[in-house]
């Protein structure tokens, strides 16, 4: 199995941001993403939607460079006012060249 080491960026955010976030991450270089509906609790306790506690988790497999760009963008644009958490890990991807 030829595997390519890439970055898996995970962003948990308010549902209202889904469209914006996915549009922006494609613009910043991601080739795809996966969205899961979740619920959670954080330190800020912002309950910004009608039905409290719901969030979305966006995961995207990208190159290290794109990962940096994404995280910098999220930190600057969304951290100040929105309930968001973002982290990155390294994964080995099958046919990973597709996602670079």
């Amino acid at each position: 199995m030829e595997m390519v080491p890439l970055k898996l960026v995970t962003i948990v955010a308010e549902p209202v941001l889904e469209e914006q976030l996915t549009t922006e991450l494609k613009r910043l270089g991601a080739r795809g993403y996966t969205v899961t509906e979740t619920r959670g609790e954080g330190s800020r306790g912002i309950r910004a939607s009608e039905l409290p506690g719901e969030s979305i988790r966006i995961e995207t497999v990208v190159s290290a460079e794109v990962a940096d760009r994404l995280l910098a963008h999220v930190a600057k644009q969304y951290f100040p006012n929105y309930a968001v958490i973002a982290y990155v890990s390294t994964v080995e991807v099958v046919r990973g060249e597709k996602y670079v």
Partner: protein
Amino acid sequence: MGEILRQNLLSPVALAFALGVVTKLIRSEFSLPKDIYTALSVYLLFALGLKGGVELAHAGAAAIAWPAAATLLLGCITPLTAYATLRRLGKFSIADSAGIAAHYGSVSAVTYIAAQTFVKGMGAEPEGYMPTLLTLLESPGIHIALAIGAMKTAAPDRDTRSVLHEVLTGRTMVLLVGGLVIGLLMGEKNWQSIAPFYDSKGAVFKGALTLFILEMGIVAGSRLGDLKKVGPFLLGFGIFMPIVHGALGAWLGTLAGLSVGGATMLGAMAASASYIAAPPAVRITLPEANPTYYLTASLAITFPFNILFGIPIYFQVARWLHG
């Protein structure tokens, strides 16, 4: 008034709402699944639209002109009064004031339905074209309040046009406007074939309404804890602003020629605060506005107030205005 109030508080709508609130007060985990809640609102909105369209076909364009003008006027006035009150008297930030104003400038469809149920129960049959007015009041107030916010704060680098697009093509508008057009086109005979399912007089509508309101009570109840976070001013605002807007709506409606039932409903619409279309629009365009303020005011203060006390008050006002 006392008797009317009592009757309203013992209506299935008020009692279902109370049960929802109590559910949260006893810290029960129970709530309707989100998709069911969505489905109920889809059904209620579509039913309103369809019936409104059928009635619109009966009413002439002339009949609706003045009420429509009054409604649009309310859509322009109410966000401004709300904004001014919050900013000047309440000393709220620009973003918070504009964010809350966007909610009070728009309309809550459930409050509309509760008002309809109430006036019909009182024997004051409203005009059939009221859903058209509901549609007209949905978005102007949001746009005006967000425009104020955008002008007065540093312009955000988000695409405001896409937000306006979302408001105009949201669930509420699609189903109300779509329902209106279908109702207009399909004709009386087709309506009769589906009326038992969609007519607000029918069993399905009333049953769906109680279940929906039960969940609204749970949602409102889950925000009761935030009441102490929003401070006394917003608490008072959430009660007195509706009374002012409600009286204004009943008065403009009466001037525009609406019956007692119609004027009451226009009052309730003006008095109500949106909690479906406005929150996401405000969240995206005014990130600094505190969601706890606008959601608590809209859901946990104004909505219950209108359902339980406001509507009977606007009804009394409308009756008094009609002499």
